[in-house]
């Protein structure tokens, strides 16, 4: 394998750069020496493709960069490139992600390790550019690993981890990096950019093995199976997703050893949760206001902590149970909605509540819908959430299971 000299030169030394979450993922693609990348414009994810195209234009990233004519084609192109053994990247946002839905479904069905970025965006109509999580969450049942990123550094790091896990033959499932629109995609932060050598040490070449479509290996992929075999094939995908948990743990330990950063767990992040009576739960950049609010409340003597769920798929039920069963009440903050669902709550809430059912100690679990359409979640919103949750502890009952925060009624 030969790396373009300019590409190798650019990442010869470790450096710090002031970049957005999208740029961080673009750099990760160059570091991972991705072969085929497909783009189609939709805000806010497309900033990653603007960055990738510039890297390619400048000769510091050798990849086949294809501007597709739709999101559907974008995902179909990388799906087929992945089947012949190429490392691939693409992404989308909001309704664009939905336009590609057929291709997204079959990519998982075919067990192809495509890595995609979802710049989380509200679904039309009515139009809105801002973040909601319903776009990425829609694939939660299909066999995509789903990770919610909180910082630009994490975006770069997890993009590298995504390839490592997705391309592991024990898994061979696609991986989506969910990035909150604007708050992550367009916000700059200082990011430590590793070297090619470090990445090469961590990330082996993609080897499709005996599943590679090539004249030397004339296999037939995805023939009709019908009721004769589909259930067994579904079961294999299920096993792969189950196995991914350990593969993620292994890869994360290796990541920490190679790059010298990371949390105790790849699946969740706990912030001031020791002795917490109220636990806030959320995903993505919500962590920023949540951490500030928790810190201030701690200064006032309030026992509040924050649990960030990083992997939505696979869902780390046991770790989440353990983290939450010590407290008195849980407040799940959803940046999504699920009309008509149990408690008319959000998707995350219902997953957390379901995961808590087998736990021996049951805290109250309340749901808060906040920050839809990119509306900012403020520290005072978090305070209100904590106050409502405190009332449930004090009175011993939940007045309303689901509360919409900062909404004009």
């Amino acid at each position: 394998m030969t790396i373009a000299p300019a590409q190798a030169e650019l990442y010869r030394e470790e450096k710090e750069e002031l970049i957005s979450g999208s740029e961080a993922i673009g750099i990760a693609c160059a570091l991972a020496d991705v072969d085929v990348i497909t783009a189609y414009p939709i805000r806010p994810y497309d900033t990653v493709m603007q960055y990738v195209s510039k890297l390619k234009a400048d000769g510091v990233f050798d990849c086949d960069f294809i501007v597709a004519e739709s999101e559907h084609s974008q995902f179909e192109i990388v799906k087929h490139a992945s089947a012949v053994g190429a490392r691939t990247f693409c992404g989308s946002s909001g309704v664009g992600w939905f336009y590609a839905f057929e291709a997204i479904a079959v990519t998982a069905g075919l067990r192809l390790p495509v890595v995609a970025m979802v710049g989380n965006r509200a679904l039309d109509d009515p139009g809105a550019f801002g973040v909601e999580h319903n776009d990425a969450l829609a694939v939660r049942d299909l066999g995509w690993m789903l990770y919610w990123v909180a910082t630009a550094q994490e975006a770069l790091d997890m993009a590298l981890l995504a390839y490592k896990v997705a391309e592991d033959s024990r898994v061979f499932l696609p991986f989506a990096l969910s990035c909150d629109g604007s708050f992550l995609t367009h916000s700059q932060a200082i990011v430590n950019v590793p070297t090619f050598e470090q990445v090469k040490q961590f990330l082996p070449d993609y080897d499709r093995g005996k599943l590679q479509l090539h004249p030397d290996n004339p296999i037939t992929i995805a023939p009709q199976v019908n009721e004769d075999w589909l259930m067994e094939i579904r079961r294999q995908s299920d096993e792969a997703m189950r196995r991914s948990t350990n593969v993620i743990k292994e890869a994360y330990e290796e990541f920490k050893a190679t790059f010298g950063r990371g949390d105790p767990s790849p699946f969740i992040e706990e912030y001031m949760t020791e002795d917490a009576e109220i636990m806030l739960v959320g995903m993505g950049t919500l962590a920023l206001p949540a951490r500030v609010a928790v810190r201030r409340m701690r200064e006032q003597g309030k026992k509040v902590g924050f649990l960030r769920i990083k992997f939505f798929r696979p869902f780390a039920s046991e770790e989440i149970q353990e983290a939450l069963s010590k407290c008195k009440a849980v407040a799940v903050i959803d940046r999504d909605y699920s009309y008509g669902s149990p408690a008319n709550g959000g998707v995350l809430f219902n997953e957390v509540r379901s995961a808590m059912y087998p736990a021996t100690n049951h805290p109250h679990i309340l749901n808060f819908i906040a920050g839809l359409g990119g509306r900012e979640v403020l520290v005072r919103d978090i305070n209100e959430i904590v106050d409502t949750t405190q009332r449930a502890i004090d009175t011993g009952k939940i007045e309303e299971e689901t509360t919409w925060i900062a909404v004009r009624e």
Partner: protein
Amino acid sequence: MTTVQDLPQVRGVKNIPVQEGYTSGHRTCQGCESALVMRLMIKAAGPRTIVVGSTGCMYVANTTYYSTPWVVPWMHTQLGSSGSAATGTAAGLASQMRKGKMKNEPINVIAFCGDGGGADMGLSAVSAALQHDEYNLLILMYDNESYANTDIQVSGSSPWGANSTFSPPGKLHNIMNKRWKKNTAPMLAAGHPNCRYVATACGSYGLDFTNKIRRALTIGGPTFIHSIDPCPKGWDYDPKYSHELGMLAVETGIWVQYEIVDGEVILNGPTKAIANGIRKRKPVEDYLMRQGRFAHFTPDDLKMFQAKIDESWEKWWIPGIVPFHPESEA
């Protein structure tokens, strides 16, 4: 651009390669012309080929788990994805070869689609594929003039008036499909000036078909072939007449056989003889009345159909191909 294989033109039907790439294991209907199209396609292309097939008869009837007829590597793609599948496969190979991750050698990439997948749902992806000059690929649209896999429903490539399960003649409306057949190949040729090769073909002319596949695979860049495939089930005729109906489609002037090579239009076979005045077009009735799907046609319907075909030969800028004409001087 990666290099192409050496696939010389075949002189004489006896020189068509003996080696099969599409063998037993499929369960296409008796008399299925599309199955022959698949067989000829891969004979012409040879073993160093990857075939990607979009949803349709040639997916469902061909590839059943544990009994694939494909000797070459084959992969399914979605109904509207033949263009993207070809692009993705070619890009994946090209990228890995350029970067030294895969042995550098010419590998043919062929994606096929039916008329539903190509002329209807997948048109935008086919169009996009034809814009990528750097990838060598062929998109073959086998046109049996209906969604034949799902019970024969009318498509944008079905002939005017054809009976289908979505366009059955009834007490009030004798003609339910009022759309004239899409002129797909010329649309793609005209719309993609850099595409070096667009052709129409018919399995009834095996040698011509074989050579068209080879020209498409060796000229370089993305190419497109549109074949007309008589379908006993969808067209409602005795399966033994598939070849004959293919020939009648050409001889009546309803189907026009040609290649567009670097912008030059080359007519083939009977089409050329008709255009040169050596042969007369047969009446459309000879073709239409052999098929149950047109059995409900009234004499007026036949007259109207004939008039439309006459117009395409007499008024069109390039007869049977380009449906415009210059501004009249009068």
